[in-house]
């Protein structure tokens, strides 16, 4: 017996695949899923790398293959640049989850708010952070260092 599967079932499953570096958000929250194709014998997923050199891509590919294996079809995961990933692809839910975990979602520098206290009295410490997609900031109001997702 073959389990019923359609695109929305696959997308719902992908929403349970966490980003390995910021596990509070999924690949769907980050807007990495460009297309999902369900064929009689295969499921093909096209993902967009957030950065060219994101070292988590292999881990993400394996996690997606593992999560979709239960549908009983061959799973093909591809990464491409035909459509560039941009930080405005992060969903509203994704932005809220980032904020709740202490990451300021991507914004214009002028609109940057501390994810802990909401103050706009923040300073950029370093454009570059612990991973390629993150910058380092400091909140002068609550004296808390925090990270933001780079707008790209």
């Amino acid at each position: 017996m073959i389990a019923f599967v359609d695109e929305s079932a696959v997308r719902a499953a992908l929403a349970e695949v966490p980003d390995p570096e910021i596990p509070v958000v999924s690949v769907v929250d980050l807007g990495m899923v460009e297309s999902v194709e369900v064929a009689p014998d295969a499921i093909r997923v096209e993902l967009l790398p957030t950065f060219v050199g994101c070292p988590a891509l292999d881990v993400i590919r394996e996690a997606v293959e593992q999560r979709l294996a239960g549908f009983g079809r061959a799973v093909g995961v591809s990464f491409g640049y035909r459509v560039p990933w941009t930080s405005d692809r992060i969903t509203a839910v994704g932005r809220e989850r980032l904020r709740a975990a202490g990451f300021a979602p991507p914004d214009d520098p002028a609109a940057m708010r501390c994810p802990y206290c909401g103050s706009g009295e923040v300073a950029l410490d370093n454009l570059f952070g612990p991973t390629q997609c993150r910058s380092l900031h400091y909140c002068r109001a609550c004296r808390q260092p925090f990270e933001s997702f780079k707008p790209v």
Partner: protein
Amino acid sequence: MTTAAASDLVPATPNALALLLLAMADDEFVIGFSDSEWTGIAPLLEEDVAMSSIAQDELAHAQALFRLLADVVDDGRDADAIAYDRPADGYFHARLLDHARGDWAQTIARRFLYETADAVRLEALAGSSYLPLRDLVGKIRREERYHAMHITAWLERLASTAGEPRNRLLAALDRLALDAATVLAPLPDELSLLMAGVVDAPGSDLDARWRAAIAPVLARLKLPMPPPAADPPRARTDHSDAFRWLHGEFTSVRRLDPRAAW
């Protein structure tokens, strides 16, 4: 592609396209490895993080370009084999990147010269008729924007601090001067790339665009404009002892274990 319909274009010779990809990939590869030497010993903790992150970006761009090159060359070598299995003389990076990272001022001076030239090159490829490269360049440019902000801030900081910082920067620009313009020196068979719509202008135009872009910055900071490349046909050959040393370093893991992954 904006200037001609696809049917007007003749295909680029595979060799010309391969040399363009090789030049770009080797540039990013060599500056990425060279600057990654600051990891752990940069003058500020913030710069340790920044330079490591930038080097990681450059190496990733190189890897993606080597993958495109492997498809074009199609001789059984994968990206890793092309990246690591050549003798030092087989690399095709610009001579600007042959210099050692030197002191911090030399790293900043070289990054400024390289990043500004690379930005002009990427812009010239933004509408490329070779779609895999056009797509990749679209993505790379979004990341390079951060490198440009970083390096311009550092150039200004060193140039406008009298005494040792400015003196070291001037000395570094002087050491690099004859090789400063090598990144955009015309590639062999560039006419074929032009006619095929792979690039939108010849190297001489790109050099003029680069000079127009950096002239106001250098003038404001009272820094000298780089002279023309001393010997354009040798812009990417006859590499230095400093590069031979770096080559020995970055191929060491591969020689130890050819199956090691990036």
